[in-house]
């Protein structure tokens, strides 16, 4: 076997054959075992694929009904500098929102799971509240609180941006909390903490070097959901006079255009998808899970 590992390879054919047989029987460590062809999984996937793609196809068909130039709507949208400006602004706000939200939610979810499980229903109730407060009520409430003394934040652009980010962090709470909580459920938080503590790590270190890396998938899911919310949101951005954001740009485009909004939603769909891909790529890191504890 050693002959395979060195470079340039001095390979004997028999070593190759032996290796090939062994590899077939026992996949190398760290790779997930590939299941056999699973028709059920393929069926489910194909059904899901159809369900998701057909409406997008329908939108595309509608957006290309412009005459004489079928792609007129797309050309108009892509030629508008405010389109990309809006996306960049919202993307930036989204990234900041993700970071703030993670910094609040991950320690909270971790703490609830570890130390105060009795308070869990209360915390979950609070995280689900953004669903029942209408966004227009939230934004007018924020204006009332932060648009008057002594907390007058809204008179400046920076202050308004801060309020916007904080509002979006609130909107992201349900998704971020649930994603992180599910991720924590899948790892053995208690053993990891105890092991790290026995090695002398403090809380910050535990969170940063033990918990965060093990929540990779959960954090990426939460980041995706938050980014999608921020890019698509427009009520709060509008009333906070953040007219550089993507949502307000869309609403100025006018509901009264017949084909352009369809083109815009497809283009922004594609671009947001690319952005998610970028996040996924950046967040990929090691594929193996770090198992601090042994088998339970």
């Amino acid at each position, binding site marked *: 076997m050693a002959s395979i590992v060195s470079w340039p390879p001095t390979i004997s054919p028999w070593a190759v054959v032996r290796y090939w047989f062994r590899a077939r029987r026992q996949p190398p460590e760290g790779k997930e075992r590939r*299941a*056999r062809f699973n028709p059920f999984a393929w069926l489910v996937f194909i059904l899901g694929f159809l369900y998701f793609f057909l409406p997008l196809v329908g939108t595309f068909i509608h957006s290309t009904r412009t005459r004489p130039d079928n792609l007129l709507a797309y050309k108009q949208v892509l030629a508008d500098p405010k389109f990309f400006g809006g996306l960049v602004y919202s993307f930036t706000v989204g990234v900041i929102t993700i970071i703030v939200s993670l910094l609040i939610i991950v320690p909270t979810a971790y703490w609830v799971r570890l130390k105060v499980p009795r308070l869990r229903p209360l915390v979950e109730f609070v995280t689900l509240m953004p669903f029942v*407060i209408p966004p227009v009520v939230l934004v007018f409430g924020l204006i009332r609180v932060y648009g008057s003394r002594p907390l007058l934040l809204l008179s400046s652009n920076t202050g308004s941006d801060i309020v916007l980010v904080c509002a979006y962090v609130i909107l992201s709470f349900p998704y971020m909390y649930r994603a992180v909580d599910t991720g924590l459920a899948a790892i053995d938080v208690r053993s990891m903490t105890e092991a790290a503590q026995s090695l002398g790590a403090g809380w910050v270190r535990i969170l940063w070097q033990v918990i965060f890396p093990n929540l990779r998938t959960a954090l990426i899911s939460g980041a995706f959901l938050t980014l999608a919310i921020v890019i698509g949101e427009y009520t709060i951005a509008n009333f906070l006079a953040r007219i550089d954001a993507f949502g307000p740009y869309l609403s100025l485009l006018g509901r009264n255009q017949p084909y352009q909004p369809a083109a815009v939603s497809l283009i922004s769909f594609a671009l947001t998808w690319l952005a998610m891909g970028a996040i996924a790529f950046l967040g990929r890191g090691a594929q193996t899970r770090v198992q601090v504890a042994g088998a339970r």
Partner: protein
Amino acid sequence: MAVATRPDGQGVPSALPARRRFNLAWLGLLPFFLFSVAFMFLPAIYLVVGSFRNNDGDLTLQNYVDLQTGIIPGAFLTTIEVSLVTAVAGGIFGLLLAYSVILGGLPRFLRTALMTFSGVASNFAGVPLALAFIFTLGQLGFVTVILKNLGFNPYESGFRLTSKLGVELVYMYFQFPLMVLIIAPALEGLRRDWREAAENMGASTYQYWRHVALPILTPSILGTMILLFGNSFGAQATAFQLTGGTLNLVPIIIGAQIRGDVLHNPGLGFAMAMGMVAIMAVSIGLYALLQRRAERWLRS
């Protein structure tokens, strides 16, 4: 002296009474609570206060009394029903979809594609989503046309995109992706060793899922379903575009009272929002009960 034991099983012999440690631990949640108060509860105060006001500005309980009149009770029932259906159905198929890419042996790139796509689709809602479905399954939608050419007219069989079922079908577009994204880490957490151990003991696939995997996943599935429930509960723009308000959903009626071109009764809208808060609280209570049962065996 008695050993202080707590529900999480951590029995700690300690000179300090258990209560003191509990209080200190609570402080760890302070940043979260402070942030929520600052940017959610404080702004929402005018909603709470407004629910006790009528149009003339006097304090009154009339709005809460009015919650029992007219179309409002039916609207609450309809909203709960739609949310439950989309939460359960969305949860089940979302779980299957996540399973198919993570554990189902599909090529790796499909998993990344589904995860990233789910990220975008999770917020594809409102007017664009409604229009997308109208262009696909509406009376002149391209799928409807294809089906008609194949000899089957769904509209003659009573299918309506603007019915409750149609709205639920459209809601799935953001419910499935939400389930997929949230349950993914839980599915990943199903260790290969468990599957192998079960197979070594002679379990079939069905038995593995029924006795090992699903019980492990149930707390996470329940948690995600409550999220889906809340997500659907607060949604209104999609249904509004599709049905024009003929499907009575609470967020739509709240919107009608609070915004809109005609003078209405915002106090009633606020009272309805408080009703939603109450329903959410009850749902969390039920969910916490279920959770406790599901997690009981994990506590050993």
